[in-house]
């Protein structure tokens, strides 16, 4: 296969674009997709400060490097979850990456927050992935607000977005369907959230990370249970193979024709938000779910006979 741009030997084939690219032209294609996403979805400008959530995986590190190369003012934020034999490896990848590329980095340690994820797993009677995700989103937003950042960027790609949309649609979850999208404007104590990789597939970010020599943390989380999103991604991978471009069509169609309808419904029936009486973060209850989780873990630990003497 030849490169669609320069006709040299291609190293990446993209059926959804009916195109292939060589190692020099693929990053140009990638950059253009990110530029288009930022411009069309009005994500941020070169005058704004962007906080980038860094897990150590291919998507977040790719996003960070690409935004830096495009000249944006970016700072990374890594959350050390405190999971033995896992979190320290992810953190090292992120720290090495930021040192190598001279990128600013903040690290939040869940241990110091009083909520290391092993405690959450042990003491909270809910799926640990769901609670962990909630805690991360809470701290990303809090740190972005407290640090005066204009936007919080995450490395969610097209496959992540389609899998999430599919899951939300399967449940007809109007609250999530009303605000899923590549840009979520700042409101009610929430910083603006953006997903500049939403036009690019997981395959495309994996190729970019490889070509740029990014050392990624690819070990699965020891607490992950083979989440349903992975199954949804496999289903969509098969659909995309049979009909290239279908993922992007599904997602774009939702943004144009589906989301406005769900947003209208949610405006009628959605819960209003107030500051949490403990931490000030926005919540529809008196005390936010993160403060409730924190209190529940502290209480369970205090009553744990294994921790007494």
């Amino acid at each position, binding site marked *: *296969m030849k490169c669609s741009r320069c006709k040299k030997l291609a*190293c*990446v*084939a993209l059926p959804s674009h009916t195109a292939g690219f060589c190692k020099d032209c693929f990053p140009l294609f990638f950059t253009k997709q990110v530029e288009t996403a930022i411009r069309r979805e009005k994500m941020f400008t070169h005058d704004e400060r962007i906080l980038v959530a860094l897990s150590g995986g*291919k998507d977040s590190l790719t996003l960070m490097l690409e935004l830096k190369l495009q000249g944006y003012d970016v700072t990374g934020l890594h959350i050390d979850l405190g999971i033995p034999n896992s979190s320290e490896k992810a953190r090292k990848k992120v720290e090495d990456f930021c040192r190598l590329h001279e990128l600013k980095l903040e690290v939040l340690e869940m241990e110091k927050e009083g909520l290391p994820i092993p405690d959450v797993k042990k003491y909270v009677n809910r799926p640990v992935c769901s609670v962990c995700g909630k805690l991360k989103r809470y701290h990303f937003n809090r740190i972005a607000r407290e640090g005066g950042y204009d936007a919080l960027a995450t490395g969610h790609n097209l496959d992540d977005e389609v899998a999430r949309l599919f899951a939300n649609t399967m449940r007809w979850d109007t609250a999530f369907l009303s605000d899923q999208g590549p840009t979520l404007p700042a409101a009610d104590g929430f910083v603006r959230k953006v997903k500049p990789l939403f036009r690019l597939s997981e395959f495309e970010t*994996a*190729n970019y990370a490889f070509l740029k020599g990014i050392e990624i943390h690819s070990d*699965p989380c020891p607490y992950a249970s083979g989440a349903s*999103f992975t199954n949804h*991604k496999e289903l969509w991978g098969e659909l995309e193979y049979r009909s290239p471009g279908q993922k992007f069509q599904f997602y774009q169609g939702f943004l144009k024709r589906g989301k406005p309808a769900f947003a209208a419904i949610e405006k009628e029936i959605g819960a209003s938000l107030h500051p949490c009486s403990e931490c000030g973060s926005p919540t529809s209850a008196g005390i936010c779910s993160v403060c409730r989780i924190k209190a529940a873990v502290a209480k369970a630990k205090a009553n744990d006979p294994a921790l007494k003497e």
Partner: protein
Amino acid sequence: MITVNLEPDGEVIELHRTKSVLGALNKLKLRSTMAIVVRDGELLTSDRKLRPGETIMVRKVTSAG
């Protein structure tokens, strides 16, 4: 025979009678956009030929998300 280093699983798999990247992916039950394939540091598209005795790295791209 082709030797496959499968990531992130960390498995080493030997494939017999495999003459192309597409053939290797088919035997691994992967579609061409579900993994990147690398030989000697070079990314390969699925139409590239493989020769007996070669080693490739196949890295699955799906993250738990």
